[in-house]
């Protein structure tokens, strides 16, 4: 099981900025290990987010996104107390969802 994400969702006026940190190796598939063998790609492929249960974000990532990825997006109209959930899924089928409350 992957480690939890850190999600911060801060409302300012009618916009909520969501910042997400995810715990993931993001192995490119281009790197070789000490024995000279290529380390297979292992990376987050899909990211989605919901606002009070309704999907708002859908993104796809390649191998170039940095290790322990960071992502920021802006939701229109969310307010303090609303629930933001983020889900990622990697190319091995592993996935993780975490939730945060808008402050």
């Amino acid at each position, binding site marked *: 099981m992957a*480690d939890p994400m850190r999600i911060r969702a801060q409302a300012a006026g009618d916009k909520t900025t969501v910042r997400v940190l995810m715990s993931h*190796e993001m192995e490119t598939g281009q790197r070789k290990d000490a024995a000279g063998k290529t380390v297979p790609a292992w990376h987050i492929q899909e990211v989605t987010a919901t606002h009070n249960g309704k999907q708002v974000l859908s993104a796809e990532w390649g191998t170039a996104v*940095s*290790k*322990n990825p*960071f992502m*920021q997006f802006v939701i229109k109209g969310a307010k303090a107390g609303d629930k933001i959930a983020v889900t990622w899924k990697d190319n091995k089928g592993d996935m993780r969802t975490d939730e945060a409350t808008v402050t």
Partner: protein
Amino acid sequence: MNIFANWAVPLALTLLSALPVVAQKTASQGIDEYRAMLADGNPAELFEAKGEDLWKKARGPKNASLEKCDLGKGPGVFKGAFVELPRYFADTQRMQDLESRLVTCMEALQGWDGAEIAKTPFGQGEQNNVTALATWIASESKGQRFNLSQNHLQEKTFYEVGKRLFYQRGGTHDFSCASCHGEEGKRIRLQDLPLLSKSPGDGVGFAAWPAYRVSNGQMWGMQLRLNDCYRQQRFPYPGFGSDATIALSTYLGVNAKGAVSVAPALKR
């Protein structure tokens, strides 16, 4: 017909239409800008969260939490502990830094084999957990000023030994810590080098570690920071929690007196 043929054409136009005569940024201004863009969202937060969880969770052969661990301010007190370490511990009768003290607690409270953890390479097994724990404990002193004790004779002695280690030249390259950290305003490649023979100021040097290294995506505690300094110095390998690393930490920590801790920081 290739619809992408005109891809590069507008480049010249872009350059021409750019704002007139913007003073050329220096490389270090550029680096500062880069760091500012990364300031929000330090992946060290992931390790903080993990460390807090590890502190509270019942684990190890004794299935106990670390909540009674004494980091120098009494059992269970973690706030402010980081900025007073290393210090002398009467129960172990030795000088300990944060990481070696955490191992003592993991052994005493949870029943782990401390020597085994000390032998485990960084980034593996329980060493990973020690780093996460240290990251969280450090974060609980964020904004506080370093204030190491120099009351106990061993604390004074370790400062003196640490000072000698700081200036000890050796290895194939004749490097000492002071080769890079003994003068103000120097840099290696593009990285500023803090002067560590006195307080380098708030959030610099000793007051910045544990830190997340963007270059390798790893969380580093002070033990690994010193270990890798020694590696780059072409020295032999300093044991985890060895007296040399703790004496050197004592020297750096005492020198940092009054500096505000920003740990866990974000580093190259």
